[in-house]
């Protein structure tokens, strides 16, 4: 999968390192380059020493360090060292290597937020242990000056700890309050601050009850929940970033006049309208433009879903995202960057996305119900006790106890603990959960919409009518097909070789980019290529035509190969009661044949991107919850508009960004697992909410009645947090 996404090999050795290094190369002082390579196949100590030893022994490499967890190598090299050289070196030694765009990885390398949270968690844990130790003495019956001293020491530990560790809660609560909203952090902050305040006051009056331990364990448990949440999302983000970084955004710009033309490698972002760009076979169009020179065929399947390659010659218009198949093309950029058709699609996505952003997560719903209730309950307890005893101290103490007991400690853990367990489980199966609410939304899905090309099909066509041809013809076709890098030719050559046929003896094999291959066989001209070039007929399928001498050309028909697990997935989904719909931009015949093959009753062909998005919106209006599975640019708006969305790792960057879940492997099988797991996860989250509520229902009356000692508060809180975490772990 990663190989397919590699950009065209770059030729300019001086600039291939990294965009950042390029800028440095312009400066007078040559500086070191920083190369990041992805090494997907390394797995052991021997691999680490192998790679580091190999790189260390290379000229120009100043230092190399392998990170086995991320399966990456970080290399400091002298200027002039290129990633391509190092990749070749490693691949010769048997290590698969790909260049990563180091600027796109910047966010993962310095996971500052994660380290920050971990530090706060560690400080809170340290303080919680010490304060608990002192509290145990108080609970066992320490009295008089001893108890006061223990309370003061606890205060001395708790105050600075809360000031440092609880900052994330205070900040979130403050932003929510300023915006006039209530979130989970408001009752949390209020409980912590009120507990600290009343405890300080009690301690200064030599009182019996202080809640320093409760305030600090509360912070500790909640931070643990936050950290879990952050870890899950950071892992998904880092993997998603790596996918993006594999597409190093560099293009070759043609400079100079037509006779003395030179090429230079520049970042795609530096292109201007009117620039001439050379796109090699296998490369993707970086910009919209017109073809100036060269002939080739274009694969537009990612944009339109069409499987059949399109002929492209001088004067033809190309759009960003199309793949050049056979011959090198020179194009003049007519729109760059944000103006390309690729980016214009983003507007469509933005419109579609506004529907989804209205989704409120289970945790938010719970918080909306919970936060006002807690405050009202605590205020009522305060008012009631104040009216009854006219003693501010007792009333405040009880209000604080109510807030601590009801504080959503278990609620704060209920969702992150489950999503961490579920995401970890799905990641091992090859699914990357990008959005935090994706699991919840996937659990509600009842309709699954599939794109055809590249999603249900592997995007690799296979010849279906080999038997119609004579062995002699197959030998000629094989020899011709071997001379071309066109995907149809390569697939044809593989199929004929598998049938055990030797290539015929041809001379003068020449490839005509955009048309086909031609050669001489026993004095006759033989051709393999497009219908219009060799004089073939019309056909609804994707075909390559073989012509021998003056005989009428014969077609090789191709059908797209079904992706692994697609048939099983569709059957399983239908058995489980999901509505399955096929939606494609391909021709009606192709889509109909494919839908019949997979047994999908409902299908839509020749759908434009707008049609796809509109259909998804329609289904949503009718009350269905749609899961969209697609990979192309034409699916992007539908992916963003659907209730939940999945795209394979081979999809365009734009499609991956728009979807909630990325499928890392080749097989589609994990999708039904993902739906099952998400349902179990949501059940588990609801159970956790219920458990937390039961603890509250039992403990709150005690707190309101003024019977809640710090010991009971600590017990209720820890017990509910631990039960909730254990319940989440059952998911594994």
């Amino acid at each position, binding site marked *: 999968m990663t190989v397919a996404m590699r950009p065209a090999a770059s030729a300019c050795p001086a600039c291939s390192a990294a965009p950042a290094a390029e800028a440095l190369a312009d400066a007078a002082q040559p500086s070191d380059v920083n190369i990041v390579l992805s090494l997907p196949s390394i797995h052991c100590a021997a691999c680490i020493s192998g790679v580091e030893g190999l790189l260390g022994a290379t000229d120009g490499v100043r*230092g190399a360090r392998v990170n086995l*967890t991320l399966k990456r190598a970080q290399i400091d090299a002298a200027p002039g060292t290129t990633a391509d050289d190092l990749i070749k070196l490693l691949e010769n030694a048997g290590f698969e290597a790909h260049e990563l765009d180091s600027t796109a990885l910047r966010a993962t390398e310095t996971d500052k937020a994660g380290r920050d949270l971990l530090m706060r968690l*560690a400080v809170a844990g340290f303080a919680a242990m010490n304060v608990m130790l002192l509290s145990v003495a108080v609970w066992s019956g320490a009295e008089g000056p001893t108890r006061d001293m223990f309370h003061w020491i606890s205060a001395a530990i708790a105050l600075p700890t809360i000031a440092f560790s609880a900052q994330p809660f205070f900040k979130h609560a403050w932003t929510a309050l300023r915006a006039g909203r209530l979130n989970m952090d408001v009752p949390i902050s209020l409980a912590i601050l009120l507990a600290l305040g009343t405890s300080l006051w009690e301690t200064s009056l030599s009182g019996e009850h202080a809640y320093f331990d409760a305030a600090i364990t509360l912070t500790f448990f909640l931070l643990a929940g936050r950290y879990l949440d952050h870890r899950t999302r950071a892992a998904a983000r880092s993997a998603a970033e790596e996918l993006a970084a594999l597409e190093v955004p560099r293009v070759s710009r043609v400079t100079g006049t037509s006779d003395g033309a030179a090429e230079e490698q520049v970042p795609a972002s530096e292109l201007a309208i009117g620039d001439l760009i050379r796109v090699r076979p296998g490369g993707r169009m970086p910009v919209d433009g017109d073809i100036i020179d060269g002939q080739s065929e274009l694969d537009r399947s990612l944009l339109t879903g069409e499987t059949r390659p399109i002929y492209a010659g001088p004067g033809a218009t190309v759009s960003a995202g199309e793949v050049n198949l056979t011959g090198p093309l020179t194009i003049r950029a007519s729109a760059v960057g944000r103006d390309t058709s690729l980016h214009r699609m983003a507007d469509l996505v933005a419109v579609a996305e506004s529907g989804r952003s209205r989704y409120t997560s289970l945790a938010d719903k719970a918080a909306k119900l919970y936060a006002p209730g807690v405050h009202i309950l605590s205020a009522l307890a305060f008012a009631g006790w104040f009216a009854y005893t006219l003693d501010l101290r007792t009333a405040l103490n009880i209000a604080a106890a109510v807030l601590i007991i009801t504080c959503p400690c278990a609620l704060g853990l209920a969702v992150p603990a489950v999503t961490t367990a579920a995401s970890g489980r799905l990641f091992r199966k090859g699914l990357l959960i990008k959005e935090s609410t994706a699991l919840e939304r996937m659990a509600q899905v009842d309709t699954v919409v599939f794109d055809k090309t590249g999603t249900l099909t592997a995007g690799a066509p296979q010849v279906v009518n080999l038997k119609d041809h004579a062995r002699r013809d197959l030998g000629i076709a094989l020899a011709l097909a071997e001379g071309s890098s066109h995907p149809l030719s390569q697939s044809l050559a593989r199929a004929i070789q598998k049938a055990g046929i030797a290539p015929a003896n041809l001379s003068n094999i020449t490839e005509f980019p955009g048309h086909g291959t031609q050669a001489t066989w026993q004095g006759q001209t033989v051709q393999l290529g497009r219908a219009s070039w060799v004089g073939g007929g019309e056909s609804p399928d994707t075909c390559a035509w073989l012509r021998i001498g003056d005989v009428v050309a014969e077609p090789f028909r191709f059908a797209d190969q079904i992706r692994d697990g697609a048939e099983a997935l569709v059957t399983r989904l239908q058995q489980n009661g999901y509505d399955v719909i096929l939606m494609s931009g391909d021709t009606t015949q192709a889509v109909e044949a494919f839908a019949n093959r997979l047994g999908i009753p409902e299908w839509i062909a020749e759908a434009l991107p707008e049609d796809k998005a509109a259909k998804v919106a329609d289904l949503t209006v009718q009350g269905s919850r749609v899961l969209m599975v697609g990979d192309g640019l034409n699916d992007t708006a539908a992916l963003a508009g659907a209730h939940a969305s999945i795209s394979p790792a081979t999809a365009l960057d734009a499609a991956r960004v728009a979807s909630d879940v990325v499928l890392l492997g080749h097989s589609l099988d994990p999708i039904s697992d993902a739906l099952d797991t998400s349902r179990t996860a949501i059940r588990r989250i609801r159970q956790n909410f219920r458990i937390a509520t039961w603890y509250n229902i039992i403990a709150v009356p005690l707190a309101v009645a003024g019977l809640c000692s710090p010991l009971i508060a600590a017990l209720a809180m820890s017990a509910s947090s631990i039960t909730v975490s254990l319940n989440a772990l059952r998911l594994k």
Partner: protein
Amino acid sequence: MNVLAYLIPVSLILGGIGLAAFVFTVKSRQYEDPEGAAQRILSDDYDDHPKP
């Protein structure tokens, strides 16, 4: 009970040493590659000097 005057500071200092050690490991980025660290110990390349 006078022993408390020694024991409480002692427990706090011991805990504090643990906390400081943990903060040091986070700051020096020892959690960036846990799998690599587990594997590197099996190889004798770094017996004489650690990988910088």
